[in-house]
């Protein structure tokens, strides 16, 4: 589409200029323009939605493969045209296609609300959680493929074993020597510290990050962003204590650990839970350096 408002955001050099009154004013103007552009965009999507309601169907191209079934042993793409309704997600569309056209269409899904982590797939060239992805945000035809870099079991189902193995390789459980005496007494944790680990606890094990990561694709033993994030969740938890922190940093510093990350941000970009994965990995690198200095 060529109706896009040209992108007017300033480049980085002007942002780093000294703050003068006119500059501040310019920024406000800029913001205003941006808001106007956003409003225009909403209008456009609404219009697009209305137009869709008229065309009424959405075109899906879905990856198919089955190791046992003649005609499916060679991977292929099937076309499905599903009637569109407002608010329809990619998962809704897949379920509709399966229940209406082809009951053998196979994909994992369960909660429908972005919490079970079953339905990360490769949609229009990007790792996405299908239940959280609106069809109306996608270009047609919508191409749905299994997560890249994982072995395909059938259709859109991939083998998650390797991902689980990496998750479990970082001692992914709470360890402390500091439990309070009283039977009904909790171990205290400051609000700030809970806040610090909060984002990292949100991971739903969907595997999108790992699938998007070049390093993981090249180094099968690389722990990967999700497992490192899991380790971050405990390393940064003040209740575990200093000794445990050292122990965890040692695990993370191994050959296939944090130092492999080349800060490409692909994981952070695809994480459906908005976990700042790359930042967490960077922070762990800094912690590792700090703790090494301590020993020297």
């Amino acid at each position, binding site marked *: 589409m060529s109706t896009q408002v040209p992108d007017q955001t300033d480049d980085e050099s002007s942002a780093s200029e000294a703050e003068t009154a006119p500059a501040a004013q310019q920024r406000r103007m800029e913001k205003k323009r941006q808001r106007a552009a956003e409003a225009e965009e909403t209008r456009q999507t609404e219009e697009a939605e209305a137009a869709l309601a008229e065309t009424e169907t959405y075109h899906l191209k879905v990856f198919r493969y089955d190791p046992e079934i003649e005609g499916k042993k060679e991977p292929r793409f099937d076309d499905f045209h599903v009637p569109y309704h407002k608010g329809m997600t990619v998962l809704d569309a897949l379920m509709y296609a399966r229940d209406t056209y082809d009951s053998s269409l196979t994909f994992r899904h*369960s909660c429908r*609300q972005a919490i*079970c982590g079953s339905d990360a797939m490769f949609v229009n060239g990007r790792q996405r959680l299908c239940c959280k992805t609106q069809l109306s945000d996608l270009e047609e035809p919508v191409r749905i493929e299994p997560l890249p870099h994982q072995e395909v079991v059938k259709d859109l189902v991939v083998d998650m074993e390797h991902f689980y193995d990496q998750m479990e390789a970082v001692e992914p459980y*709470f360890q402390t020597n500091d439990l309070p005496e009283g039977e*009904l*007494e909790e171990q205290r944790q400051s609000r700030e510290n*809970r806040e610090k*680990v909060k984002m990292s*606890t*949100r991971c739903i094990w969907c595997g999108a990050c790992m699938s998007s990561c070049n390093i993981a694709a090249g180094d099968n033993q690389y722990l990967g962003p999700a497992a490192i994030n899991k380790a971050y969740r405990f390393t940064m938890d003040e209740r575990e204590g200093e000794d445990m922190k050292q122990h965890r940093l040692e695990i993370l510093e191994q050959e296939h650990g944090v130092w492999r990350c080349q800060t490409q941000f692909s994981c952070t970009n695809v994480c459906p839970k908005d976990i700042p994965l790359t930042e967490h990995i960077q922070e762990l690198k800094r912690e590792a350096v700090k703790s090494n200095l301590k020993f020297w």
Partner: protein
Amino acid sequence: MYEHDVIVVGAGGAGLRAAIAAQEEGADVAIVSKLHPVRSHTGAAEGGINAALREGDSWQDHAYDTMKGSDYLGDAPAIETLAQDSPEEVIQLEHWGMAFSREEDGRVSQRPFGGLSFPRTTYAGAETGHQLLHTMYEQLVKRGIEVYDEWYVLDLAVSDEDAPEDRSCHGVVGYDIQSGNIEGFRARDGVILATGGPGQVYDHTTNAVSNTGDGVAMAYRAGVPMEDMEFIQFHPTTLPSTGVLISEGVRGEGGILYNGEGERFMFEYGYASNDGELASRDVVARAELSEVNAGRGIEDEYVHLDMRHLGEERIIDRLENILHLAEDFEGVDALEEPMPVKPGQHYAMGGIETDENGETCVAGLYAAGECACASVHGSNRLGGNALPELIVFGARAGSHAAGRDLGEAEIPTGKRGEWEAGDVETPVEPGAVEPEVEADTSGDAVADGGSGLDPDGFVERAAERATERVEALLANEDGRNHAEIRADVQQSMTENVNVFREKAGLEQALRDIRAAREAYRDVGVADQSRTFNTDLLQTIETRNIIDLAEAITLGALVRKEFRGAHWRKEHQERDDENWLKHTLLSWNDGSPELWFKPVLLEGEDKRYEPKIRSY
């Protein structure tokens, strides 16, 4: 054949807790689950866990609130166990590192919830279930407990004495989803069902696609009674387009409900003049539908839940997840506008009849979590009381199955205690359709009388029958697709067995269910692959949905009173004289038998006298 001391079916909160407890008791335990543990629907729980932790609160108050909330249909021994054990269990979770929300002093936060006399709902933001599930799975990994994940349990291996009370359970039959292999699992000491809720019986539900009530249906067909199935909780605040839940935490923090005319109807129309939005769920759900039916709804469908006045900071601190849900699943920015909400199926108070140790009337067969009915929730569950139920009764079932002495249970199971026969007139015959392919091949251990098999023999026989069933379904390649049959049942249930129930509608539902049973005789599986055949599994799940839909409807038809979540147009009063009793339904070889047993109101040191329930 695989062999373990204790086999736990299901890896949600209840299953994980049961497995940990069994292992702590020294058992060799394994979990068999159709989903990888972290995919279980416990992860969707938002609001919190009730536990009397603080000064000024007590287990007695928690028990009292729960009994009142149950509308006096809960059993005191179960309710008191829940209230007594939940503080310890919640602190246990904290000691396992669970990321609870915190107070300034570093202790775990608690908030008010509907129907509670004290703010005793412990929480982790609006993602308590996610934190709980992952924390417990971490413990599983730490302990190296074996999980057969993506194994679907097809059936139980139960002996075949005439009376269910004389039977015993020796294992289960598992189907490896990835390979299509069927294997027997021998359980030397016990099988624990922790398969979760049956939300997929309805088409508008907060439950996951995998919540198909498998465990309840399996136990039912093996002779274990289902208890109080008519009591289904409809949550008052679900998003209209998907059924995604907006936690009660929103109202707990001060969220307000408005009708289409901008009136705060909970107060203005006197639905709950004291507690308003924080009245019990059944009360709020009925109020919303009454408003919509009176023409004061929005788009004739829903009402508004507004939390904007709480302010961005507080919302982000305590309810951040709600902002994401409203945005992603309804396209609403809840910081800027009110959220549309309407009642949706949420929770089953009824389930597999157990005692307070989680044991059923069949020796060696246990149930815990939402699939079980001890009964803690009676006719209406209070928000925040299911998660403690998972961990309290999961732990009890696990350790009891592994041989720990928990003392004699006070709640009798099966027809061991006092009971009376029941009867209900139905427009069509419920139960199995003859001749039923299912009947000879599924869980009906009953059919052939004493067989003299040893425990391994029962497991082998169950595996053979399950194999025959799977082969039969696959052989009927051009048979009917289950999806249509399932959709018909779900729609009929939402239309006829919902918040408001009347005789004609309930009878219609039974006719529709009968039609579904007829249609199911010709069901088949088009996908001929042995690899990850979800077509096959969903076909099997649909059969379970039909059995549960029928049980819910039969219970709703027989219970001629209005109690808790069960409202009947023709019977507008709670009737303690005639109905202070549990509804039970036994499969009885395919001709379901209704019966009743008294409610136990006698607590440890007091009797809970039924009072008018007002909020």
